[in-house]
């Protein structure tokens, strides 16, 4: 790392040298001044380890890409708890590192932590991953971004629906919160678009990183007859590896887990955060205000899907690709009626369609028909 610092120092010196030369050749002055200008310091805060094969890694990979942008300095801190710690980390990044753009990437950082710090530092821009930014309610220097990864989960469901023989799918989830429920529902709807008799058994482990519980849950699902497993936990590694050992198929989440399950990996829903971060940073560098309520899915390049695994049949691929093409074109809705919950209530009436941007979907507290499990 000392090497890294040395390099950045050298780069600064180089830029200063360029500035001096530029002064001599006065025609190039504006350009040189831009080069010598101070770097935009961007802070990333992760709730878990950066290399977790999952949620945090997806963000850290994008942060690593930002490092190669000119005029950007990235500072990162991992395993920061959702307590006063994260407030102090943000303040420390601002006070001691000069951060001007801060990305607290865990949901629990939003309220009250980021909001409180943002109110204290009005000159620093904060963009939060997953939060529900409301203009007027929340400080003007804050905002939120998130991706419609349920599109990826719907495509996962299509692949799972074609692959399953037992017509029982399994979903290992951390907690019954809207972001998770939306994924479970999209996955199930995707599978049931292939065969309406398919069911998805959900097991909640209770927290975001519980390797033994995740392994037990995967085993429990396979024992109950499930033959395709997917998950929404911070690191899908244990779930994917356990399912592979049990001979079940898997669909990935967060990042590409194909190398972990060479036989059973069907496809996966992956984040592609660099699209978002690059846009924020470019705007900040240009002196514009980065977006404050930023959402996007496949079409916008916020998410992507893993390449299909060897077990995926040509029909399955064709069906998945057809829906994916519609999503890319922007004329596909996952949540279009009639949709009933698994408690028998009609939640989306026939003919009614909720587009991805609809905020009602971000408050989801129900599970669709076909899901075995409950929301509390």
């Amino acid at each position: 790392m000392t090497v890294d610092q040395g390099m950045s120092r050298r780069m600064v010196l180089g830029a200063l040298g360029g500035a001096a030369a530029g002064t001599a050749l006065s025609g190039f002055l504006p350009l040189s001044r831009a080069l010598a200008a101070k770097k935009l310091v961007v802070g990333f805060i992760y709730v878990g380890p950066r290399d977790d094969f999952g949620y945090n890694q997806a963000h850290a990979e994008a942060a690593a890409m930002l490092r190669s942008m000119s005029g950007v300095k990235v500072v990162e801190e991992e395993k920061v708890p959702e307590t006063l710690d994260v407030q102090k980390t943000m303040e420390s990044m601002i006070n001691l590192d000069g951060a001007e753009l801060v990305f607290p990437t865990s949901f629990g950082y939003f309220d009250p932590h980021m909001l409180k710090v943002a109110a204290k530092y009005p000159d620093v821009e904060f963009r939060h991953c997953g939060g529900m930014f409301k203009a007027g309610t929340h400080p003007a220097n804050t905002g939120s971004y998130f991706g419609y990864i349920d599109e990826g989960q719907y495509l996962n469901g299509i692949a799972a629906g074609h692959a399953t023989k037992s017509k029982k799918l399994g979903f290992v989830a951390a907690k019954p919160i809207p972001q998770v429920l939306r994924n479970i529902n999209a996955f199930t709807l995707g599978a049931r678009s292939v065969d309406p008799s398919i069911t998805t058994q959900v097991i909640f482990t209770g927290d975001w990183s519980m390797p033994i519980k995740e392994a037990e849950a995967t085993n429990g699902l396979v024992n109950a007859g499930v033959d395709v497993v997917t998950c929404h936990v911070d690191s899908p590694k244990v779930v994917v590896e356990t399912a592979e050992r049990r001979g079940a198929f898997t669909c990935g989440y967060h990042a590409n887990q194909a190398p972990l399950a060479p036989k059973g990996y069907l496809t996966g829903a992956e984040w592609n955060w660099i699209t978002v971060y690059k846009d924020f940073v470019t705007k900040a560098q240009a002196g514009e205000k980065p977006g404050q309520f930023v959402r996007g899915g496949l079409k916008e390049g916020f998410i992507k899907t893993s390449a299909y695994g060897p077990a995926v049949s040509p029909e399955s691929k064709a069906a998945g690709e057809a829906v994916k093409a519609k999503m890319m074109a922007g004329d596909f809705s996952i949540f279009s009626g009639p949709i009933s919950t698994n408690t028998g209530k009609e939640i989306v009436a026939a003919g009614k369609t909720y587009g991805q941007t609809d905020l009602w979907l971000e408050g989801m507290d129900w599970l669709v028909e076909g899901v075995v499990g409950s929301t509390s």
Partner: protein
Amino acid sequence: MEDLGWWGVALAVLAGAIRVSTPFLFVSLGELLTEKSGRINLGLEGTLVMGAMSAYAISYMTGSPWLGVLVAGLAGALFGVLHALICGLPRVNDIAVGIALMLLGTGLAFFLGKAFIQPQAPILPAIEFGWWSDLPQVRSALQINVLFILGVLLAPFLLWVLTNTKWGLIVRTVGDSADAARAMGYSVNLVRLAATASGGFLAGIGGSFLSLYYPGSWNEGLSSGQGLMAVALVIFARWQPIRCLGAALLFGGAGALGPALQSVGVTQGYYLFNAAPYLLTLVIMIATCSPTRTLTGAPGELSITK
């Protein structure tokens, strides 16, 4: 696959007892040996995590998981030696040193283990004891790792060593009365060093089971306090190796209850089901302890029960 319904829950608890209990078993037997010599090592949580990390790292680098198990044991023994050497100094509190080493072990394992979160290391094989059954669930439940079998055999062996051999007698003497042991000409510190190092060796192996068999992967959330709990199980088992085996199986099985119930559709209150092992242990302790007699089997020199 056939749906077993509620029988599936019973089977899952049994399978869970076999799968999840091994680390508890190794750590508690190791701690038992240490405590029998009159010293408590609360740091086995750190040893467990260090064992898990080093086993995975060695398996990944050499391709041999068994070498990983060995190195995990050695790393554990090293921590045991460290604990014993520091506690061998006069006026040093063994409980506190244990807690400090728990922190150091966990910290070192996390620090050195960053590079091994991503890679996939070869893991330990299982022996198929379920060949006689047509049910895949039964076959899977009876996929048993050699370490579990070793652990099960270790419990009676340890009991035999402690009760019937000269070595066992020396350890127990040192544990019950350091003065008596000194009078007999034994070096108290040396015996405790050997007992703590052996205990650490076992705890390290317990850690290797986590990373190299079940769940079979290295990450920082791997141990949710198994090492600490295993130390508690020794007191629960009243310093008796066979009861340690029982306690480990009970604890492992109870831990499988939460996910198993959800897989048959009992979806409410999973936090409470996940707490079942702790509640069960507490209830059994309340039922079996007595205020009037001291804990039978407790080594006389043990600071925690003095």
